[in-house]
């Protein structure tokens, strides 16, 4: 049985800092297992969010050795254990306590976005006919587990604090899923250009790197949306045609 040390961020707004815990570890453990052991044996009041422990609910987002990861999907044998493993809360959201942050901004943003508005069903039985090939890319976006790691890592939010002007990668994925949905009739391009701040994204792709569902956020969602915005508002030929319509 080996030991490992975990340097966990403890405390709240009034006072916080790293605290070291050394515990016995075993084969196949993930970071969340270590946190649970510390919680049960050394720190009963440790604030940590988790639910499914299988990478499906997106609750246990944290920064492990500086990388935004899900704690339940980070195996200890993928980390250097000859030094302390640092476990911190997500930096981009207001800190609540220990490893828990206030992610409510994400819920407020979603509420402001135009919802799904399908066309009327057009098949004889009152439903729609949709081909699998036409929804493959939408289904990629709907794998999102709302872990908010992409939001956490995006410099526009993390470093430049543009929460009032930029909806973040998660919500570009959300918007793309509807814009590319063959049934949806709403037009979100104007909002994407203005209130959603898609122009702020300079495609550094940190979001794509951290997505636990391996959604190609930048290439499949953000860039196509940028192209649509540009086509609609910045294409000189299109503007010319519109003038003469």
């Amino acid at each position: 049985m080996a030991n490992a040390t975990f340097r966990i961020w403890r405390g709240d707004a009034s006072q916080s800092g790293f605290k070291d815990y050394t515990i016995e570890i075993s084969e196949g453990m993930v970071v969340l297992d270590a946190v649970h052991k510390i919680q049960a044996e050394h720190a009963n009041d440790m604030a940590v969010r988790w639910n499914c422990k299988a990478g499906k609910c997106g609750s246990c987002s944290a920064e492990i050795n500086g990388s935004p990861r899900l704690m339940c999907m980070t195996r200890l044998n993928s980390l250097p254990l000859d030094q302390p493993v640092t476990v911190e809360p997500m930096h981009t959201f207001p800190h609540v306590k220990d490893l828990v942050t206030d992610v409510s901004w994400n819920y407020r943003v979603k509420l402001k976005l135009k919802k799904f508005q399908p066309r009327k069903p057009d098949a004889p039985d009152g439903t729609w006919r949709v081909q699998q090939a036409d929804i493959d890319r939408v289904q990629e976006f709907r794998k999102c587990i709302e872990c908010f790691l992409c939001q956490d890592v995006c410099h526009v939010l993390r470093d430049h604090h543009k929460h009032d002007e930029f909806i973040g990668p998660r919500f570009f994925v959300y918007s793309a899923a509807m814009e590319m949905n063959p049934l949806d009739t709403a037009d979100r391009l104007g909002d994407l250009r203005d209130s959603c701040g898609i122009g702020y994204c300079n495609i550094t792709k940190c979001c794509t790197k951290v997505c636990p569902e391996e959604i190609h956020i930048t290439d499949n969602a953000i860039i196509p949306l940028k192209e649509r915005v540009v086509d609609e508002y910045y294409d000189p030929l299109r503007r010319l045609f519109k003038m003469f319509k």
Partner: protein
Amino acid sequence: MAAEYPIHEYDVLVVGAGGAGLRAAIEAANSGAKTGVVTKSLLGKAHTVMAEGGMAAAMGNVDDRDNWKVHFADTMRGGQYLNNCRMAEVHAKEAPARVRELEAWGAVFDRTKDGKILQRNFGGHRYPRLAHVGDRTGLEMIRTLQDHAIHQGIEFHMENTILRLLTDGGRCVGAFAYDRERGRFRVFHAKAVILATGGIGRAFQVTSNSWEYTADGHALAYLAGAELLDMEFIQFHPTGMVWPPSVKGILVTEGVRGEGGVLRNKDGKRFMFDDIPDNYKSQTADTPEEGWRYTQGDKSARRPPELLTRDHVARCINREVKAGRGSPHGGVFLDIAWIKEKIPNSVEHIKKKLPSMYHQFKQLADIDITQVPMEVGPTTHYMMGGVAVEADSQMSTVPGLFAAGECGAGLHGANRLGGNSLSDLLVFGKRAGEFAAKFAKEKGAGTLPKDQVEDAARVALAPFERGAAGENPFTVQHDLQSLMQDLVGIVRQESEMQQALEKIQALKVRAAKAGITGNREYNTGWHTALDLDNLLTISEIVAKAAIERKESRGAQFRDDYPEKSTEWAKYNLRVTRNADGSPNVQKTPVVPVPDELKQVIEEQAK
């Protein structure tokens, strides 16, 4: 009291924001009720998110021989005829409409070649019936409901936990809660309350269930005077991961078997062919070849024995392991990689149909399921028992208190078919919302009981007074999980269950001394101590009901009563609370099946 704690007024309060809770809230709000939702976790992260297989609905998109009658008969057979037949009828009839409605709200299901919603095979279903998206249908459902619900004027209270239901003259008039972030108490004054709190898996060591599954709704209802039903029937899903220890119990969807996955013991034998129950013989394949053809959509073929009902498959696996024919880490082998013998592009096919299984095994166990078999074993998965409800309205025996989803009882009888839970959530979530709103409109608000609020607050804060000298609540929960796993698990026996009852009493004494340090803010130790009471209350009831039912049927298997009994076939078990707080377990006759439905069952048995 009014000055101390904030009071939130609602027509309908929904406890739980999984599939059933969200669907109920949407219906209540659309019926004109002022609706509030309380959820222990963050919105969109309830256990529903874990559901993989699909929603069972007799739409007939893949096999037009399917209709509500076949679905109804399948559900009743799976439940060993202990089901509430009216609930099974309503469920089979209304599921297709609920699935189509979900599509209209934005759910993006996999499609058939002619563009309809695709349906897959699953254990116990005669025809391919499960509408799905890859192997992440639960996520699709909850996200669709969440994204629709947020625009219906519903108020959400995230990371709030209900401590007690408030009653006035036997009627439920609201609930007492605390918010997890700051630990402050609040009162919900509601004309109707809907419990949608899920199951009880966290009472067991090996479970597929999320953290929040601590039997809250069951305990809240019981303490408020409601009748519980079928508490002995806990489903142990046959295929959970077994290695490494950190993933033990995590679900491996039945969908793997639906796509052609087979079960083998350490000798490479497909042991399921050795033991096909009589009442399923006519529906089960004779040869591996026929079984394979069934999974690939051949309508003339019958299902492979791997797709028999979960209770049976779990017991077969358990038997192989106990007999020493299991896999290295105490399970059996589930092999989908073998289909490379049948399909040229098997690797892409498996990754496309079962992406999250591929991902889960690769990430957590470093296994590539397209190349090698998985090790799987039984895991505590679903609670068939729960709050007894009236079939059409979902109201419990306490006026004003409703229950929907896993925390309700009756639809699934002694064993649930895969896929029937997701459609259960939609059908009965909608009904609970509809009838709760109606109740609220007709009855108006009740009077809040000041004494119950004061008492609940006092009891909730007690762990802080005991401090570091008290019992560690995590240790008590851990000990409960061990004892339930060993003594009230997949194979039961009178003496072991009696032992469990004694140990539970001892744990109750320890839990009453649980102590917590730190402050009230996001104190997970405190939350655990509070959830623990619910787990202990319900664990005792489960053991008592299991002892009472002296037969094996569906999900309950007893070594000392290994056969089905014609006498017990006539009864469900109901549980109510005695004045001294102890559980009163009574037989109650199974809901009588009207002639038209009897005829349906007989026709489908051919």
